[in-house]
C-alpha cells in the first residue's frame, strides 16, 4: 500500500531525476554547442553514411536540441514527450559508441573496457564501459520519467 510518506518520496525523487537529467543535458548540450567544430570532428569519426550537409546539421544543431530537451525537463514541460525523445537519442547513440569502441579495441588490441576515447557526449575522453553504464542509467531514468514520475513542480507536464 502506498503510504503518503512513500508516495511523497517517490514524487520528490521524480523531481530530482527530472532536474538532474535536465541539467545534465543542458550542460552536455551547451559544452558542444559552444564548440561545434570539435563536435563535428567527433561525429565524423563515426563514419555515418550521410551527406556533408546532414553531417553539418547534426553537428551544428544536435547540441542545441539536447540543450532544448534539457530545459524542457528542468522546467517540467511535456515531460513524457521529452523523456521519450531523450530515450530515442540515447539508444542509437549508445549503440554507435559501442560499435566504435569495438573497432578501436580490435585496431589497438585492447580489452573492450580499456578503450578510452571522446565519444562526443560533451564530457571529453571517457572509458567506454563507464560511458555505456552512464547511458544505461540515463535511459532507465528517462524511462521512469516516461511512466509519469516528476510531475511535482512541473510547469506544464503535458501538452
Amino acid at each position, binding site marked *: 500500500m502506498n503510504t503518503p510518506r512513500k508516495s511523497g518520496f517517490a514524487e520528490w525523487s521524480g523531481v530530482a531525476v527530472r532536474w538532474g537529467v535536465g541539467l545534465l543535458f543542458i550542460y552536455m548540450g551547451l559544452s558542444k554547442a559552444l564548440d561545434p567544430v570539435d563536435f563535428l570532428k567527433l561525429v565524423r569519426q563515426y563514419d555515418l553514411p550521410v551527406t556533408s550537409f546532414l553531417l553539418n546539421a547534426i553537428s551544428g544543431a544536435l547540441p*542545441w536540441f539536447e540543450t532544448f*530537451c534539457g530545459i524542457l525537463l528542468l522546467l517540467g514541460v511535456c515531460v513524457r514527450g521529452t523523456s521519450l525523445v531523450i530515450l530515442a537519442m540515447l539508444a542509437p547513440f549508445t549503440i554507435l559508441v559501442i560499435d566504435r569502441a569495438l573497432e578501436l579495441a580490435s585496431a589497438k588490441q585492447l580489452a573492450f573496457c580499456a578503450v578510452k576515447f571522446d565519444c562526443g557526449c560533451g564530457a571529453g575522453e571517457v572509458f567506454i564501459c563507464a560511458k555505456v553504464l552512464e547511458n544505461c542509467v540515463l535511459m532507465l531514468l528517462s524511462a521512469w520519467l516516461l511512466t509519469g514520475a516528476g510531475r511535482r513542480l512541473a510547469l506544464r507536464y503535458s501538452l
Partner: protein
Amino acid sequence: MKKTLLESATIVLIGAVLSLVANAVSPRGLKLSRDYFPKSEPVSSAPSNAVPVNAPANVAERLSALGFSMMDSNAVIQAYQSPERLQNLLIFVDARDDAHYAKGHIPGAYQLDYYRPENYLPAVLPAAMAAQRVVIYCSGGDCQDSELAGRLLRDSGVPPQNLFIYPGGFAEWSTNNLPVELGAKDSQIFQR
C-alpha cells in the same frame, strides 16, 4: 501513449527549428552548405622534394597522395633557425583554433583556423604567396587540420611545392623545449 508520441513529435519539430536557428545565429555555428572534409584528389606522383619523415605510414601515404611535402622535427627546427624565416621567405602557419593558438604557438606563426577561413585567409594568403616555403602544423598525432589548411592554401593559389606539413605538430614542438610564443602573433611574450 498516443499523447506522448504527439508530444514527442511536437518537441522534435519545434526543437529542430530552434536548433537550426541557434546554429545559424551563433557566431561559432557551422555553415550547413560547406563541405568541411572534401574528398581528397590523389596526385599522380609525389613531389620531388618530399622529405622522408618518421611519420606513421598511413599519414605519410595520405600526405604524399595529396601532393604535400612533409617536414620532420629536425627539418622544422632548421627552418625555424634559417635566415629565410626572418625575411618572411619561410613562414609557419598554425592550423588550430583561437584558444589553442593563444595558449602557445611557434613564434611568428600565422594562424589559419581552417573551419573559419574568412577570418584568417586575408592575412595569411598574401604572406603565403610571397613566401618560398610555408610550413603548416596543427596539434600533431591524429590531427588532420594542417592538411586541410594546406589544401585550402593550395586551392587559393599557393604553389603546392611551397607547402610543407609538419606532422609532429605543436605537441612535438613544445615537448622538445623549443620556443613558444603566447597570445597573438609576434606578441614577443614567450613561455618560460
